[in-house]
């Protein structure tokens, strides 16, 4: 990139700059005309110059030029107007000029603004483009937040400056020179004085500003570092909490802010000092005129008329001069910022743009063996990680890489993935250096997976299909205003030097995913998810989510139908006790008393949370039936039991997890309450105390808490009250509760709750696990699985995929690679977080999956579990950066070498 901002702007906006200069020059004509006009109006029609006789007329709008050689050319003879007519005519001309000037100003400002914004867009894009082309090692030394603050904030003022970069100095310089010229015309000596003073300003002020520039640079760097530190705090918040270092961070931030304050305050001081001196110098010139010019005039060596003319001409000089100096200040400021940013982005060995050129058509495949030739790799400090390794991976073969933690096998895998660049030697694919092949070939033919996965903010689906988005394969179709907008987008992108690829196009390479379009993508994706054992997790995500029936038409009906199918399925398997469903006329023993009473999900303010206890209608129903007394006695027994069991335990005891209806802090409170109510009944208890006690009974589940408080009469009573509650409910409250109805979908409940329409029995430890597997097979047989998984794929992963567990992230990372059709799969310890049994299963399944449909890719797997090496055609053993053994599994076992040691350890 250019080192000078002026040259950068000139290179990219030359044409526009010249145009705007021309427009500014033209705009000067009406501008100066409008200066002269007031004088004409006052002198002419108002004061009567040239209208000496009543009824006298004057020629108006005579347009003629005196040209050399051609003589007088007359374009318009003009019309004869009287004094009054002339007044109105001239006033109209004045109004016209005001409008023209305004329009010129409007045009020039918009044009300059657009020019600046385009350049800003161009430079920002160029910077991000550079980031995409940095060599991998560069990222070890950069902080993301600092880079983004450069791209976002630090180049921002460049846009504002662009429009003024050439127009402003031309305009102001012209004005200043004109004024100076006028002074010279009046008196050469006074002109010289003015010129010298201007020269002094031009020399001193920029010198003083040098310090400002240094401070400005410091300000920029410290602000950038602050951004970096803030993002470090966000990223490292776990570490900060874990080690109680928040105050260390506070101290660091405070000291940085202190430094920034000092720099900024220094900056202000200098700025205003420079301003003061600048103003002083500007005012010194008239002082010299008065003083020296006056002296000369008194001595009679200078005409008084001349002196007055000089002084009046001078008043036009300081304005433009000051603006010019301000402009120069901005220029230097912007230049500093620009250089600062450009320096950071000038990196050796950036990737050639041609290597990343977009390839819409199939980019061709890698049919050649992948080879490391005398490859040595080193880390930043120069320590050798891999030494002179030569190895070939043939198409279609499976290779296991084993070795200790610092063996070097993982580095070889990184080199194959172009993430680590060779220190010496090279990685080749059929004679070509891998680093010189276009990414459209290597990035599709080689799929690399390591344990540190990065996920982009967005849905699970977006991330799963991320590896398929190489090029806009199917243009988005626009109609009407959309098409016009798209046209504008393309034109504007070109003007700012941006590419015009459309993000709304379909970027997904269905072919590479073994599909033909969006609709049949599901099958291959599901088989991949099954292989990495993630489909269950995704199904769970879907089943836990609440789905609006309107957004998924047909699904709700399918789910309601499925309730019956599930019932039958469970009965057939002899598992009908696994789920106790909600029946409008029966008590559900696995649900809480509260759930049984309400028999619905509270969705509105009348019933939600604590409001139910205060709801007058609900209380009247419960009170009328006498249920409140029963529930009070029940709650009293629960409180007694809980206090008896837990009173002696410290509040942090893990047993409190089991106490679902109270917290540890409630225990002493209830202890007091029990003492107060002892021997007294419902009638003696106050309103609040009743509420406190009845509240407990609402959360009671007999099979879980086992206090023996629920009799069949009580259950019948609760069901009866439930019926009364729903039947007599006022219309205004009906919207606040969604009643359990076997034939209707509950929009406020999760998918799983909707399918079960009941509660899983507490008797079976793995009840929910078993139900999930039954539900998943049932969804499959009913043809609903695809739609439900689809809902799971909508799950938002959060920043960096943090809403998934570490294991899920690793599985998704592997799935993302397996979705793609590649010639080479490089797996670099992709699943360190999984236990051995699971790893074993997944490795086997992956090896099977990549060979689906007769495909024959090569697989290189850096194993964390050496025991799996026998699944591969060939095994490479690395130790301390050297390739120490190589051969088939059987041969290596025979060999009694390092491999055998690794396996037995």
């Amino acid at each position, binding site marked *: 990139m250019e080192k000078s901002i002026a040259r950068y702007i000139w290179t990219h906006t030359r044409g526009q700059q010249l145009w705007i200069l021309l427009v500014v020059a033209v705009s000067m004509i009406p501008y100066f005309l409008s200066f002269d006009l007031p004088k004409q109006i006052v002198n002419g029609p108002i004061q009567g110059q040239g209208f000496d006789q009543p009824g006298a007329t004057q020629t108006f709008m005579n347009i003629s030029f005196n040209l050399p050689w051609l003589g007088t050319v007359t374009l318009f003879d003009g019309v004869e107007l009287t004094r009054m007519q002339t007044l109105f005519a001239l006033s109209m001309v004045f109004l016209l000029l005001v409008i023209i000037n305004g329009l010129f100003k409007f045009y020039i400002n918009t044009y300059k603004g657009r020019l600046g914004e385009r350049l800003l867009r161009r430079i920002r894009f160029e910077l991000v483009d550079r980031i995409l082309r940095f060599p991998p090692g560069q990222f070890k030394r950069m902080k993301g937040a600092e880079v983004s603050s450069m791209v976002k904030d630090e180049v921002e003022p460049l846009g504002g400056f662009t429009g003024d970069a050439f127009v402003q100095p031309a305009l102001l310089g012209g004005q200043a020179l004109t004024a100076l010229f006028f002074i010279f015309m009046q008196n050469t000596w006074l002109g010289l004085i003015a010129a010298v003073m201007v020269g002094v300003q031009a020399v001193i002020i920029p010198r003083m500003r040098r310090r400002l520039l240094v401070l400005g640079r410091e300000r920029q760097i410290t602000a950038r570092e602050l951004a970096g530190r803030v993002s470090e705090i966000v990223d490292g918040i776990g570490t900060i909490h874990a080690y109680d270092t928040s105050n260390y961070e506070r101290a660091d931030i405070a000291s940085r802010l202190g430094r920034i304050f000092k720099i900024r305050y220094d900056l202000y001081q200098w700025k205003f000092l420079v301003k003061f001196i600048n103003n002083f110098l500007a005012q010194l010139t008239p002082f010299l005129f008065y003083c020296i010019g006056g002296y000369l005039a008194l001595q009679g060596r200078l005409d008084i008329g001349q002196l007055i003319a000089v002084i009046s001409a001078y008043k036009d000089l300081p304005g433009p001069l000051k603006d010019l100096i301000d402009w120069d200040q901005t220029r230097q400021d912007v230049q500093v910022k620009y250089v600062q940013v450009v320096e950071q982005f000038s990196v050796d060995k950036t990737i050639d743009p041609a290597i990343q050129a977009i390839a819409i058509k199939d980019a061709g495949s890698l049919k050649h063996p992948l080879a490391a030739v005398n490859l040595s790799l080193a880390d930043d400090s120069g320590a050798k990680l891999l030494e002179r390794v030569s190895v070939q991976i043939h198409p279609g073969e499976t290779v296991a890489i084993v070795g200790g933690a610092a063996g070097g096998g993982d580095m070889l895998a990184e080199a194959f993935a172009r993430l680590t660049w060779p220190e010496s030697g090279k990685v080749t694919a059929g004679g070509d250096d891998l680093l010189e092949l276009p990414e459209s070939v290597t990035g599709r033919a080689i799929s690399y997976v390591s344990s540190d996965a990065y996920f982009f903010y967005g849905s699970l689906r977006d991330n799963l299909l991320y590896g398929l988005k190489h090029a806009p394969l199917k243009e988005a179709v626009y109609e009407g205003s959309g098409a016009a907008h798209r046209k504008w987008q393309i034109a504007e992108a070109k003007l700012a030097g941006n590419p015009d690829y459309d993000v709304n196009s379909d970027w997904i390479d269905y072919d590479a995913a073994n599909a033909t379009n969006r609709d049949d993508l599901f099958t291959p994706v599901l088989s991949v998810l099954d292989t990495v054992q993630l489909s269950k997790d995704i199904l769970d995500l879907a089943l836990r989510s609440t789905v609006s029936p309107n957004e998924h038409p047909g699904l709700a009906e399918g789910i309601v139908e499925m309730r019956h199918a599930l019932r039958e399925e469970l009965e057939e398997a*002899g598992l009908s006790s696994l789920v106790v469903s909600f029946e409008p006329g029966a008590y559900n023993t696995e649900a809480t008393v509260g759930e049984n009473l309400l028999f619905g999900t509270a969705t509105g303010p009348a019933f939600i949370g604590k409001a139910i206890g205060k709801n007058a209608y609900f209380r009247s129903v419960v009170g009328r039936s006498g249920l409140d007394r029963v529930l009070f006695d029940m709650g009293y027994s629960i409180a007694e*039991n809980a206090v*008896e*069991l*837990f009173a002696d*335990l410290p509040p942090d*005891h*893990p*047993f409190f*997890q*089991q106490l679902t209806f109270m917290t540890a802090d409630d225990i002493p409170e209830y202890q007091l309450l029990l003492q107060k109510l002892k021997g007294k009944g419902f009638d003696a208890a106050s309103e609040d105390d009743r509420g406190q006690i009845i509240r407990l009974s609402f959360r009671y589940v007999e*099979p879980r*808490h*086992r*206090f*023996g408080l629920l009799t069949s009469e009580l259950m019948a009573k609760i069901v009866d009250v439930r019926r009364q509650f729903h039947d007599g409910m006022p219309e205004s409250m009906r919207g606040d509760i969604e009643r359990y109805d076997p034939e209707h979908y509950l929009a406020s409940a999760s998918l799983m709750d909707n399918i079960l329409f009941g509660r899983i029995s*507490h*008797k*079976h*430890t793995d009840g929910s696990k078993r139900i999930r597997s039954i539900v998943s097979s049932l969804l499959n047989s009913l043809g609903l699985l695809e739609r439900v998984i689809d809902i799971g794929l909508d799950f938002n992963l959060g920043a960096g995929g943090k809403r998934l567990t570490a294991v899920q992230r690793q599985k998704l990372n592997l799935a993302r690679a397996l979705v793609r059709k590649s010639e080479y799969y490089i797996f670099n310890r992709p699943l360190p977080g999984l*236990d051995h*049994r699971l790893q074993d299963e997944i490795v086997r399944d992956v090896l099977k999956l990549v060979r689906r449909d007769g495909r024959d890719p090569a697989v290189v797997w850096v194993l964390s579990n050496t025991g799996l090496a026998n699944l591969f055609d060939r095994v490479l053993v690395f130790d301390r950066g050297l390739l120490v053994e190589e051969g088939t599994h059987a041969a290596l076992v025979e060999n009694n070498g390092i491999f055998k040691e690794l396996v037995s350890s």
Partner: protein
Amino acid sequence: MLLKDEVQMLRRVPLFSNVEPGKLKLLAFTSDRVSYDPGEALFHQGDTGDAAYVVLAGKADILVDSSTGPIKIAEVETNSIVGEIAILCDVSRTATVQTTTPLEALRIRKEHFLKLLTDFPEITIEIMRVLADRLSHTTSELSEARSRARKDTDLH
């Protein structure tokens, strides 16, 4: 079954016979009451251990995977405890426990179980006794197996 019945049953388990009834009630309350059909597994070999089980009623086999399929190494009796090794040593399950009759058990979660041991030394001692008993049992079986193996090799 109610809490108080469970307390009665727990008192019959040798491990808890010396623990006062109030604490047994707490133990019963904080554990999950689970039931299994015949042929169901409480847990599989290789799973991570997250709970111990006190068998209240029913029987189960202890099976270990081998190259020739699962081998039965012992039987779980009513009123005994299983699955405590994986919790105590933080290893994965060393064997599979599969029911042979309908089985009722109390499932004590790992953190509750460990807390129980620190709170009630009498349970700890009882657990030690059970483990030591098993160890001596295993040792004698091992020596028996060794001598048999030696005989086998001597014969060949």
